[in-house]
């Protein structure tokens, strides 16, 4: 007959030792930190910068504008002219502080400070001191008129579409 043990020891895995608890907490915190850092890194790498403001605007085919017409292009803050001599465009951005000018009897008027320009963009009264900027007009590959408000056109510039 064999002797019976006076007490039955608990299985080791049934009770978390102090060392095991600390190891669990440490590793959990490290995993959590690592995971959060990884999320942050992925967010950083995936960040899309804001696109630059649109400067080129497509305005349809040249023959959709009759000779003698004036067309405000609100999104571009510009006006497109078609005359016998060709197409040309003016930025409607006031040369004083950048408000958008509006049509009036003589041409354009700035609603912010009252500067006025004639229809060719020349200053009629201040506070603006410089004329409205003429901007580039061209055709894109699809045969549509485009204006590029970031490109200043030289004085007297006219765009004449080539006959098809």
């Amino acid at each position, binding site marked *: 007959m064999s002797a019976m043990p006076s007490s039955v020891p608990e299985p080791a895995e049934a009770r978390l030792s102090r*060392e095991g608890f600390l190891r669990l*907490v440490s590793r959990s*915190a490290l995993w959590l930190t690592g995971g959060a850092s990884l999320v942050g890194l992925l967010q950083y790498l995936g960040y899309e910068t804001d696109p630059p*403001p649109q400067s080129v605007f497509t305005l349809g085919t040249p023959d959709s504008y009759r000779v003698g017409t004036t067309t405000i292009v609100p999104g571009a803050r510009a006006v497109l002219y078609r005359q016998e001599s060709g197409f040309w465009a003016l930025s409607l951005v006031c040369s004083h*502080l*950048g408000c958008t000018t509006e049509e009036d009897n003589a041409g354009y008027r700035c*609603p912010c400070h009252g500067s006025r320009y004639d229809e060719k963009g020349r200053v*009629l*009264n201040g506070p603006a001191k410089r004329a409205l900027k003429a901007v580039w007009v061209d055709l894109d590959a699809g045969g549509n008129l485009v204006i590029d408000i970031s490109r200043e056109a030289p004085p007297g510039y006219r765009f004449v579409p080539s006959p098809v």
Partner: protein
Amino acid sequence: MKARWGFGLASLGLGLAVAAASMREAAPAYARYAGQTEPVRLIPSLTGEPEYCLTCHQGIEEISAAHPVEVFGCVRCHGGNRISLDAQGAHAGLLGGGNPSDFSAVDAACGGTDCHSGESTEERDHIARSMTSVQSTYAGAIASVRYTFGAQPDPTARYGIRAVSDPLVTSVTGVPAIAAFASIVEEDPQAVQTFAAECLTCHLESEPRAGSGYQRLTGCAACHSPSGLDGAYVGDDPTIQGDEPGHASVHRLTTAIPYTQCDSCHNRGNYNLVTMTFHERTDLPTDGRASRIEDYYQPIAQFTKCEWELDCVDCHTSQEVMGDGDLHSNQSEVRYIQCSTCHGTLDDGPLTMTITDPDDLALRRAHLNPVIDLQVGDTVVVTSRGEALWNVIQQPDGRLVMVGKATRMNYEVPLVKGSECEQDPAKQESSACHVCHAVERP
């Protein structure tokens, strides 16, 4: 063993910090203002640089039609950190605190040749004019009080709230420089020191006295951003506490300044002329419900109907109020509007001018406060110094009509010439007109 515990606790702390940061990221501080969790970006066309101020300040009123937010944004005038989403970080470097027109910041915030300074003519250099004006320097009151109490031998200005010099004196009464009053005041008689202690809140660089009725901002906004009696903000910016004093009523600049704004300094009380202590008015109801005629002038004052029906800015011109560019020893040296400016005398009608220059300042001012559609070819009243009263316009039939700058009300201007007035043409001070035309206070 201790090292293990320390490592464990440090790890736990790190984990908690990461969790807190994640929660903060999920619900940023700015979200409490308007509920949005995406920052609001604005790229003003004037600067072309993104700014995020409207993330918290969405709903704030546009400051004026001349400063549309899509053109100016916020940072051009207010300064601060345009990309910070943290209130403390975003407000670091704000110009003039919340008020960029404070004279400590106005040059940087509002100046520039395309803006409010640096013009070739003094009448258009508004910042320089304002900063040398008697309302800014308080040199007139200081000189008068010091002279009265024997601290200086004549009433010519020597001191102002701060030292100022004017390299270009254009008027007969202008002085080239004044020193800071604080540098001398301790050597002055007691009454002057009392004046310095109690009465130096009535200039554009000073915070106003505490209490109802005194509320205004400093600098240009003291006049151009009107406050209510209690200085509470009643606009739609969710970040501004509505019940705290010290604010303009709304975020707005205006040249249509109501008389109530002038009253926040003027007609608030009197000095004891022996001790120079200040005595607040006690004749007004404390609930702010004073009638206009009660509110406008102190009981001792005489005034005509037009002096309390109109707003101060309807008659008093920019040069009178904001200065003519020179340092002066007394407000009377720049205050020159008289009854005859509009009403003429028995011998002559008022001076008028037909606008011929499309750059005339009168047109600019009418544009900023379009109570009338002023055009080249219109005829308006001008002062003896040639400054246009652009809101007093001659009608096709010759009548003169004044349009209230704040009320937009029309008033026909009666002329003395051809009337039954028995004035002595040599006596044109208002006191002479008050003899017959003063109205009774109810």
